[in-house]
């Protein structure tokens, strides 16, 4: 089955807000998820690699302070005694394994994090003086020695022990090398290899710079995902919204097209079903309206034509008797009455025939329909009928319908009661309003009395005008003709 497409000119809601809301929430959720992951990683590290998350042990700091004191005189020399420095540090390396945390392992097990660090000595200006073992080049790891030092020292002269972590997760400890008078000579830095063990791969992720980078990228991905998902949902929802809008306008040729097997698709299908039901109900209502109209016509026939013909019958009978009795003058008067009654009956007959075959208001529009009515009924009844509708083309369907019904009622009243010789229907646009005036030169009536009786369908006319958000006024006086004036908003 092919569904009609909506035209570009058709109303389509943007749902932009929904799209941005989704984008923002996807972004926030992604960032929150990453932060949660980081927190979980920290928890894992604390459980499995406490030393990696924690700091240097007091023992390590003490050990390094001792080493720093030992190398202080060597660093003080100008130039620093590099070979002696290396020898001294190498000695320490060989003498003792260094642990940078207090491993809580079972007895007899060799702590896995007791490893030998790389030593680096810097002078007060931050220049690398010595690196032990020498064989280790700076490019050994993913991170250079300089970077390792920066991580530990924060690019500042070190006056107290500091710890830090490189971007690839290696642990760095720095202690100041102080002279005899506590003056800073430089720094001794220990760079430990990356700890091994469960969760150690998480270490690089936890580095602040990496964390920021990850958050940024994840946020971007989240935003993009939200943006596209939002766009996708928005498109589908606006298709449905456009369909419902069309239904609201009474256009049931549009179908909410969404064949997906999800909730939105199900919603679209239900709405289509509902639209079908509404269409059926509307058709039922139209059928009922037709039936009601027929009943009304039957009533009208009884009310007007039957009575008139009954009266003709009575008059005819009376005239016949009078003629037989030789009362010619009274008989002639009765015959004149018969003519008048027959003429009135003819008018109402035309009206009823016209009512049975009303012009297609929907297709032809109000102006054409009014013209047809005046020609078919008023003009043939010998009333001069004029329609002035300059610059009025089509109006909103509800307005056309309402105005036509009001005009019809007013014209019927004129035909039945006014004895008018002239009727003018005027349609004018004034600002955002449409004004319709129906004027006749008939016998007129007292509007207050007319309304009080509820005859003439005046209250029905006023109700129709009110339903269109408009007003209806009637100016009339006995013997002075009548003007019915309706003012409604166009649209």
């Amino acid at each position, binding site marked *: 089955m092919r569904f009609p497409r909506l035209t570009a000119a058709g109303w389509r809601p943007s749902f932009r807000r929904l799209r941005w809301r989704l984008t923002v929430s996807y972004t926030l959720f992604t960032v929150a998820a990453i932060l949660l992951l980081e927190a979980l990683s920290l928890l894992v590290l604390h459980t499995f690699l406490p030393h990696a998350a924690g700091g240097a042990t007091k023992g390590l700091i003490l050990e390094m302070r001792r080493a720093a004191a030992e190398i202080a005189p060597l660093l003080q020399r100008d130039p620093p005694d590099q070979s002696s420095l290396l020898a001294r540090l190498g000695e320490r390396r060989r003498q003792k394994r260094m642990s940078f945390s207090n491993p809580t392992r079972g007895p007899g097990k060799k702590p896995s994090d007791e490893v030998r660090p790389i030593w680096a000595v810097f002078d007060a200006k931050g220049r690398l003086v010595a690196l032990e073992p020498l064989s280790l080049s700076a490019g050994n790891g993913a991170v250079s020695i300089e970077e390792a030092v920066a991580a530990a020292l924060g690019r500042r002269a070190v006056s107290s022990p500091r710890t830090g972590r490189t971007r690839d997760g290696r642990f760095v400890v720095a202690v100041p090398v102080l002279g005899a008078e506590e003056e800073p000579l430089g720094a001794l830095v220990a760079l430990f290899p990356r700890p091994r063990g469960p969760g150690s791969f998480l270490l690089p992720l936890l580095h602040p710079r990496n964390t920021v980078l990850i958050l940024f990228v994840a946020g971007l991905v989240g935003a993009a995902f939200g943006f596209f998902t939002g766009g996708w949902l928005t498109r589908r929802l606006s298709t449905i919204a456009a369909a419902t809008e069309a239904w609201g306008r009474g256009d049931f040729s549009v179908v909410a097209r969404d064949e997906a097997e999800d909730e939105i698709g199900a919603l679209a299908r239900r709405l289509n079903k509902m639209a079908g039901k509404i269409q059926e109900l509307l058709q039922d209502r139209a059928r009922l309206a037709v039936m009601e109209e027929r009943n009304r016509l039957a009533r009208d026939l*009884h*009310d007007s034509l*039957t*009575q*008139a013909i*009954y*009266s*003709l*019958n*009575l*008059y005819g*009978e*009376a*005239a016949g*008797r*009078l003629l037989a*009795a030789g009362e010619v003058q009274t008989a002639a008067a*009765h015959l004149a*009455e018969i003519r008048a*009654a027959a003429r*009135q009956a003819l008018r109402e007959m035309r009206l009823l025939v016209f009512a049975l075959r009303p012009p297609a208001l929907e297709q032809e529009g109000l102006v054409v329909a009014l013209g047809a009515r005046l020609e078919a009924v008023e003009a043939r009844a010998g009333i001069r009928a004029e329609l002035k509708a300059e610059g009025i083309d089509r109006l909103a369907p509800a307005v056309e319908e309402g105005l036509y019904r009001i005009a019809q009622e007013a014209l019927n009243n004129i035909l039945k009661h006014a004895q008018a010789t002239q009727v003018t229907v005027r349609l004018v646009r004034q600002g955002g309003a449409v004004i319709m005036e129906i004027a006749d030169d008939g016998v007129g009536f007292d509007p207050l009395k007319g309304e009080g009786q509820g*005859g003439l369908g005046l209250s029905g006319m006023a109700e129709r005008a009110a339903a269109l958000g408009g007003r209806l006024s009637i100016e009339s006086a006995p013997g002075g003709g009548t003007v019915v004036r309706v003012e409604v908003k166009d649209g």
Partner: protein
Amino acid sequence: MVDEVRVLIVDDHAIVRKGLRALLETEPGIAVAGEAGDGKEAVEMAARLKPDVILMDLVMPGMDGLVALRRLAGAGFKILVLTSFATDDKVFPALAAGAQGYLL
């Protein structure tokens, strides 16, 4: 003439009232005492004119014909009901309400 039958015509259609009057006036011995357009008017006029016979339609706006008929019959008036249909479901209630007869 003293022994004329005075008739009150009650119908909401002026054209029918006129026709009835025209016909009744050709009948010697019958005089049209007045015309009423609805039930309320009929009750008032009957009290004032004291007609011998009331000729009335049952289907009228304002006071329903049957209500007016019941009231008039209660006051002792003789009433003939006018109706278009022999099967009119108002005929029998009208007779039950005190109408003397009906005219098709």
